[in-house]
């Protein structure tokens, strides 16, 4: 064995790509978990087809998982991979354009047979025609090596053995980046607890991949990526949907109100339902409704009953909830409506990300029906936003809309866990119980909240509904002045939530050349871009909105301090419309609707242009 070289790297992006059946999501997320345990900062980006099992070997069937891990703080899953692992010709075809010259390319040569090449549209094998010369190519028969390594494992068919190629590849990447195996071995042991032969096979394949690189002449250099300096604390790697579910549960515990979660399955929101269904011991009731309208109305019914009613969907399902959201505005009950956005319009591209439902959130109902809107900016921020949405809904007795997106929902990042129960804000709940002088629409002076009364409270029998209501009694009213008053009050009530919206902090100079304003899941890309520009000496600053309605109080003032305002959005220009209308600022949009998150360099180059 020759002595191998060890190089230290700051930051690496690795992408696993293969057929949907090749288990790329599993090895990708496991690579990420290990990076997290090692102490790297990280961000992940799964990108998979809409089909459950797309036809094997085809281009639309390619599934990918990218992990960005670093010894520094990072904010995105990376623009392009430094290392690309491909399991078949289709995966090569789809992904090679992203790999820069001199990038590491690991290929399973076993999959490059005539049939697969044809399916991917290759006339001849790219492994043989020299077309991959610009890469550091490692052409390895992963499948047969995996199979061979499992020669002695009993109780598995050949096919089953060969399927361990993904784990074998994972083992190779662990060698390449000097990762420990034990975490993954522990995970495999748990995962296959009931199938010991699989535990043996997978752990053996993992070790074999590792050993293969160690032994092979081809691999002369290995890398290490030291831990990132993070704030002390407990961490775990978390996906947006998981975090959102936890945030809701946390708010439920803090408020003492059990959750009623009414939802109808839809990509990419269903995992929230599936996560919450696990938390029945927290008193959570999940109701898989017959459709989105039943989902939201059942949640309104639950809120009326004194639970915290929550519903979630994605764009098309949110469209269906519009009418009922108007009812919630009218009856003024706490309610949380979550939109995990995906690429639209209509069915669009269900598994792809987009931010194109902001104006729907603002205006997708009949009448003047304002609703407060929060948007998470990163996977772990979904926890905070979910928690905050419940808190505001209860405090102001109001429906609240939360925007997440497919990128946040499926992406993961390290999350610094709240340490103690007390670290989480309290959520005081007040149910009105005093019959004396009770009027269902008499409001709190400060929050304008109306009393929340549980049916079952003696002496407080009353009636609410979607017809305009008298300002005090809540009885049906067709009075002209009353309608004006109630419309104004509903708007004012939402406006007053600004008291609970923290002022924006500017990252970068407090005033200057270019201010980049974003919202939601683009935070990481914008932040990375602004940092990069600043380190290049460009006067660029960033503010990022987590509160879209009402806006933070100091937003207008900050906008006024910059020469140029750039608004990158994964839509055709929605926040920018609101900013221009409200502040008459001649903001400039950077808009992309490709079903993919921003690349940092796309934002960087626009900032460069603007500051040129």
């Amino acid at each position, binding site marked *: 064995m020759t002595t191998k070289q060890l190089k230290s790297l700051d930051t690496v992006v690795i992408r696993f790509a293969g057929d949907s059946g090749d288990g790329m999501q599993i090895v990708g997320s496991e690579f990420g978990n290990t990076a997290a345990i090692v*102490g790297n900062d990280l961000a992940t980006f799964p990108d998979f087809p809409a089909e459950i099992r797309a036809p094997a070997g085809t281009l639309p069937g390619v599934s990918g998982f990218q992990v960005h891990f670093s010894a520094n703080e990072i904010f995105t899953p990376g623009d392009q991979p430094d290392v690309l692992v491909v399991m078949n010709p289709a995966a090569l075809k789809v992904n090679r354009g992203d790999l820069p010259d001199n990038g590491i390319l690991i290929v399973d040569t076993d999959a490059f047979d005539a049939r697969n090449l044809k399916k991917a549209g290759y006339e001849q094998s790219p492994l043989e025609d020299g077309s991959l010369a610009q890469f550091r190519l490692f052409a390895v028969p992963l499948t047969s090596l995996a199979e061979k390594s499992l020669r002695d494992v009993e109780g598995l068919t050949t096919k089953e053995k060969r399927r361990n190629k993904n784990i074998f590849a994972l083992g190779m990447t662990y060698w390449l980046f000097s990762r420990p195996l034990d975490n993954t071995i522990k995970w495999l042991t748990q995962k296959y607890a009931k199938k010991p032969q699989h535990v043996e096979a997978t752990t053996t394949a993992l070790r074999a991949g590792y050993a293969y690189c160690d032994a092979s002449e081809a691999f002369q250099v290995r890398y290490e990526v030291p831990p990132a300096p993070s704030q002390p604390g407990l961490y*775990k790697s978390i996906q947006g949907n998981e975090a959102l579910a936890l945030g809701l549960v946390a708010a439920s515990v803090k408020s003492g109100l059990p959750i009623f979660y009414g939802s109808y399955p839809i990509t990419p929101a269903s995992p929230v339902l599936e996560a919450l269904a696990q938390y029945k*011991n927290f008193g959570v009731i999940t109701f898989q409704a017959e459709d989105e309208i*039943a989902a939201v109305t059942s*949640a309104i019914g639950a809120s*009326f009953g004194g639970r915290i009613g929550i519903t979630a969907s994605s764009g098309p399902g949110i469209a269906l909830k519009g009418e009922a959201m108007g009812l919630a505005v009218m009856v003024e009950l706490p309610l949380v409506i979550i939109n995990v956005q995906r690429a639209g319009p209509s069915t669009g591209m269900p598994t792809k990300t987009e931010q194109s439902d902001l104006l729907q959130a603002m205006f997708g109902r009949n009448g003047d029906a304002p609703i407060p809107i929060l948007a998470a900016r990163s996977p772990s921020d979904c926890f905070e936003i979910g928690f905050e949405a419940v808190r505001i809904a209860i405090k102001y007795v109001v429906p609240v809309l939360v925007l997440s997106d497919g990128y946040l929902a499926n992406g993961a990042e390290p999350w610094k*866990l709240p340490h103690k129960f007390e670290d989480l804000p309290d959520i005081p709940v007040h149910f009105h119980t005093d019959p004396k002088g009770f009027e269902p629409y008499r409001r709190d002076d400060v929050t304008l909240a109306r009393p929340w009364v549980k049916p079952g409270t003696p002496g407080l029998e*009353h*009636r609410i509904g979607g017809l305009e209501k008298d300002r005090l009694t809540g009885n049906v009213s067709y009075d002209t002045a009353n309608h004006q008053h109630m419309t104004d009050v509903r708007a004012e009530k939402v406006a007053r939530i600004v008291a609970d919206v923290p002022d924006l902090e500017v990252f970068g100079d407090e005033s200057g050349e270019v201010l980049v304003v974003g919202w939601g899941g683009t935070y990481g890309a914008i932040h990375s871009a602004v940092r990069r520009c600043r380190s290049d000496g460009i006067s660029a600053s960033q503010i990022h909105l987590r509160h879209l309605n009402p806006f933070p109080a100091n937003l207008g003032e900050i906008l006024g301090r910059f020469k140029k305002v750039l608004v990158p959005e994964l839509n055709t220009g929605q926040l920018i419309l609101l900013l221009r209308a409200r502040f008459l600022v001649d903001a400039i949009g950077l808009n992309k609707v490709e079903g993919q998150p921003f690349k940092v360099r796309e934002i960087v180059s626009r900032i460069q242009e603007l500051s040129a």
Partner: protein
Amino acid sequence: MTTAMDGPKLTKKDFVSDQQVRWCPGCGDYAILSSVQHAFAKLGIPRHKIVIISGIGCAARFPYYVDCFGFHTIHGRAPALATGLKVSRPDLSVWVVGGDGDMLSIGGNHLLHALRRNVGIKILCINNRIYGLTKGQYSPTSPVGTVKKSTPMGSIDRPVNPISLALAAEAGFVARTVDVFGPHLQETLLRAAAHEGSVFVEVLQNCLIFNDATFSNVTDRASREDNVLYLEHQKPLLFGAGGDKGIRLNGLKPEVVRVGEGGVPESELLVHDEKDESLAYLLSRMEGDGFPTPIGTFRTQEHVSYEAAAAQQVRTAREQKGEGDLMKLIHSGDVWTVP
């Protein structure tokens, strides 16, 4: 489940709200309202434990007029909203009131799913075979050929049979009654209230303004006896003046026979059995053609209610995993420490 509570005895007046009733003079809804208020007073449930949920329509104005908790929601969605409430608050007695348009047109699906899930809500579908509130368009229960505002040449849609539908949805309790049959209506409501699980009651109602006399065959005093078949559990299916007619089965087809002298003996008649789903369905199909309209309880079946099962899962989860511990949950999984 809702149980009777001790407390002062209630009367109908206790359930009269302070809101002025705004139905047309002569509307059948007045009689239904009065029966509901009477029946509620007999339930032994305090007013604050009762909730009426409605959709939109004339009938759906019901909650305003009954002095308990009420929610006048949006068109068609009352069963869904009530499901959320009942599952959250099994201690409440939850009633849903709506019209044929509200429940069978826009709301048909929510009705179906609430019934099949066996949610313990009591649904009153007030059927006047017309859209009252929107001023008289035909409804899904209007017979073919109905000439109304939107169908100047007559409707061409074959109508829905609400009872058949509720049976196919496997509601726990399925009955039919009539706006002006006060005692029958009240009795039906009391039985409905006592039933655990989903309840569907069709109430035939007269919309004086837009569809007067649509059920006159049932309500006309003169012909009533010949046209109404009262269903009673374990009793033979007799009707007509002095019970001179009955329903007999010929294969799977019902037929009207003369009973007693010169006719067939009572023993040959069909005997009503609320537990028999095929019989219930067969009875639900009886209409016109010399057949009487069955009134009463078509079917009952006992299953654990949706809300009870949901609550049971929460209890089981707590038994198995312990009461949820938030910090434990947050700190579970692959956690690492940065010192």
